[in-house]
């Protein structure tokens, strides 16, 4: 890959801006995101409040920046959790096969049969809405697809000669799995992980919008969008900016994910 493709540049810039905003938001924001001000109530974008202020006079830009960090943290932890749980299940099921495989995959398929968001809704209803509840619920919802991908890769990898060679070298099964099988599953997993990051972001926004997400007054893009609904006619910026944040970030992640897939798939190389 000699020159960067425009898609990669656009995706990189979008994700980069969000990441930067989130990082900066952790130490500094133009206003205290929780500070209420009656004078600024529903203020339109101006020199003082670049992206306007909400119904309590809180600065939208500051809230978006803090929300970016919250959303990124939730998505990241969700993806890591799902990867960890799914990979373990997939490796065990794929490598040991037989009854282990059948039982694990039966449970997995049962989970897969629910739409992810529905499963998360159910779990949140039981556990109550908070940040860790969301992470757990979404993690459980997403790990079955990871398990499937890993199991598929393991099924073909375990028949390869280099795994047979490892067995002949008197290596234990755990060592063979960790040293030879796992590293060779990484490529499809990275691709899956990027798209999952996008799903998690969207699902978290959707859950927050439904009121099952991070409870107010903490800001997430989803609950900001939800809170803007009654004021959509008077203050369009309240809904517009969080919405833009969600869609542009998703677009950026998807563009990067596509580029990553092209790069990791040898068949796509050099075309």
């Amino acid at each position, binding site marked *: 890959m000699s020159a960067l493709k425009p898609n990669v540049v656009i995706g990189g810039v979008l994700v980069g801006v969000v990441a930067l905003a989130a990082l900066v938001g952790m130490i500094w924001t133009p206003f205290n995101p929780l500070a209420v001000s009656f004078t600024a109530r529903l203020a339109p974008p101006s020199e003082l409040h670049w992206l306007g202020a909400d119904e309590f006079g809180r600065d939208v830009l500051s809230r978006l920046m803090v929300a970016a960090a919250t959303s990124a943290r939730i998505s990241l932890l969700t993806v890591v959790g799902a990867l960890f749980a799914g990979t373990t299940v997939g490796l065990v099921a794929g490598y040991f096969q037989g009854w282990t495989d059948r039982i694990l995959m039966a449970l997995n398929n049962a989970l897969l049969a629910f739409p992810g968001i529905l499963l998360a809704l159910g779990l949140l209803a039981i556990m109550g809405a908070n940040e860790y509840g969301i992470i757990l619920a979404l993690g459980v919802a997403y790990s079955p697809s990871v398990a499937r991908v890993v199991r598929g890769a393991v099924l073909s990898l375990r028949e390869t*000669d*280099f795994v*047979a*060679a490892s*067995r*002949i*070298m008197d*290596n234990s099964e755990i060592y063979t799995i960790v040293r*030879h099988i796992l590293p060779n599953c990484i490529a499809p997993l990275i691709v899956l992980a990027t798209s999952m990051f996008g799903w998690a972001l969207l699902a978290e926004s959707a859950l927050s919008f439904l009121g099952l997400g991070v409870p107010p007054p903490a800001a997430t893009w989803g609950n900001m969008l939800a809170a803007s609904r009654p004021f959509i006619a008077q203050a369009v910026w309240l809904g517009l900016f969080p919405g833009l944040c969600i869609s542009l970030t998703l677009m950026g992640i998807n563009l990067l994910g596509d580029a990553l897939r092209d790069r990791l798939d040898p068949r796509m190389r050099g075309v």
Partner: protein
Amino acid sequence: MANADLLVVAGLRLALRDGKEIVKDVTFSVRPGEIVGIVGESGSGKTLAARAILSLQPPAIRRTAGTIQFDGQELTRLNARALRQLRGARIGMVFQEPMTSLDPSMTIGRQLEEGLVLHTKLSGPQRRTRILEMLARVALADPEAALGAFPHHFSGGMRQRIMLASAMLLRPALLIADEPTTALDAVVQRDVLELMVDLTREYGTAILIISHDLSMVARYTDRVLVMRHGEIVEDNTTAELIRAPREPYTRNLLSAMPHRGPTRPKPSGPPLVEVNNLIVDYKGSAGLFLNRPGKRALQGVGLRVGPGEVVALVGGSGSGKTTLGRAIAGLLDPTKGEILFEGQTIARGTEGWRRYRPQCQMVFQDPFLSLDPRMTVHSLVREALRAARNLTSVAKNVRVRETLREVGLAEDLATRYPHELSGGQRQRVAIARAIARRPAFLIADEPVSALDVTVRAQILDLFADLQARHGFSCLFISHDLGAVEQIADRVVVMRDGEVVEEGDRDQVFDSPCHPYTRQLLMAVPRLEAFVT
């Protein structure tokens, strides 16, 4: 006599977009009805040169110079439409793997009819008669039934016959056969080639046959072109090329042909590895509606390998030789029967198994598949010593370096990854890994089949050398009788999961008892036959 030539390729050059030349100034001609072979190792440009005749080279490769005259017509100036009319009708092609060149979702009848519809004005019934005639001619058992069957219903040899039928249906003046039988085993290979030669002689078709196998090409061709690095190094009549090759490279290729190794004294003492009445069943797959029946891959096989002895296991594809090798390696569990190492059973979990495991190592056919792509050469070989508790970490590193030197790999290769090595170097790494722990018994499953001719000769020499030095016993599994003749002390011939013949190498090669062994030996083209 240039006018009498059917095909004249002159000064052909092919290059990648970045200007790298892959075929350099290739000039040759084919007379009507003549059989010409192009021989070369992988990367010599032989396939590209042949494909360029019909502009069938991959799109990334362009023709930069040269003329191609076919039957007085300049092909390089033809447009796509005119080329299409030529392809199939006047110049037929047969490719290496018939499973991928036949459309899996179309019946044989429809595929064969396609060409006739495009290039002839025959009516439906006429087409059908012609197809049936041709299928009968290529010795398909039931041509009528074959019309409605799909490619996967046929074996590799049968599919290649069908490909041949489809190419010859249009009675082309030239047939380009690109490694037509490389994917087939020796006996089938011979049948298909004889058929191809007979059939083309009947129609006066010339053949341009491309292969890496000099002895196979020598058997059927009138003239041979030897290619290397995109150039033709020698263009000679077959008889002349074998008897008195002009170029050093050709001599090199010829001397790389396997030759019989020295006869060694028989090993004394009890057998190191003993297999008694071994049965291996493959479980059938549970389908959605029907359960596919299982298959008995080995039906009561016995085998003995003496200390320091090299026993070759030969047979066609599906004979069970690989299954037997994997069972002895402990990679699959036999259904019945016993495998003994130094008189002790090696059933999993027994004391015998724990003793056997480090003593038995394996070299696989394709080193690209048997080496973990994400490990360096050093760590690959070092891994073989991981479970050796009697060696310190320093001693292990010393052993790795020593072993790499032994298999002829330079020290600076130790930090490379498998994909940065050549095929021969990769197989050397695989061998280094297998011998690093100084095993008493080595199983080599087709260790030289994926390699080029000259590389194969080097690896076989290395193998013999290491075996003599370390004195390990070896089970050498191969369909390549040339390699077997060079390296084995004893030969075991398998067919359909059974041992049909077993004996000392000289005895099996010189006076085979079983008809199948004779058939196998006859099917192997030998250069000696042409020289004398």
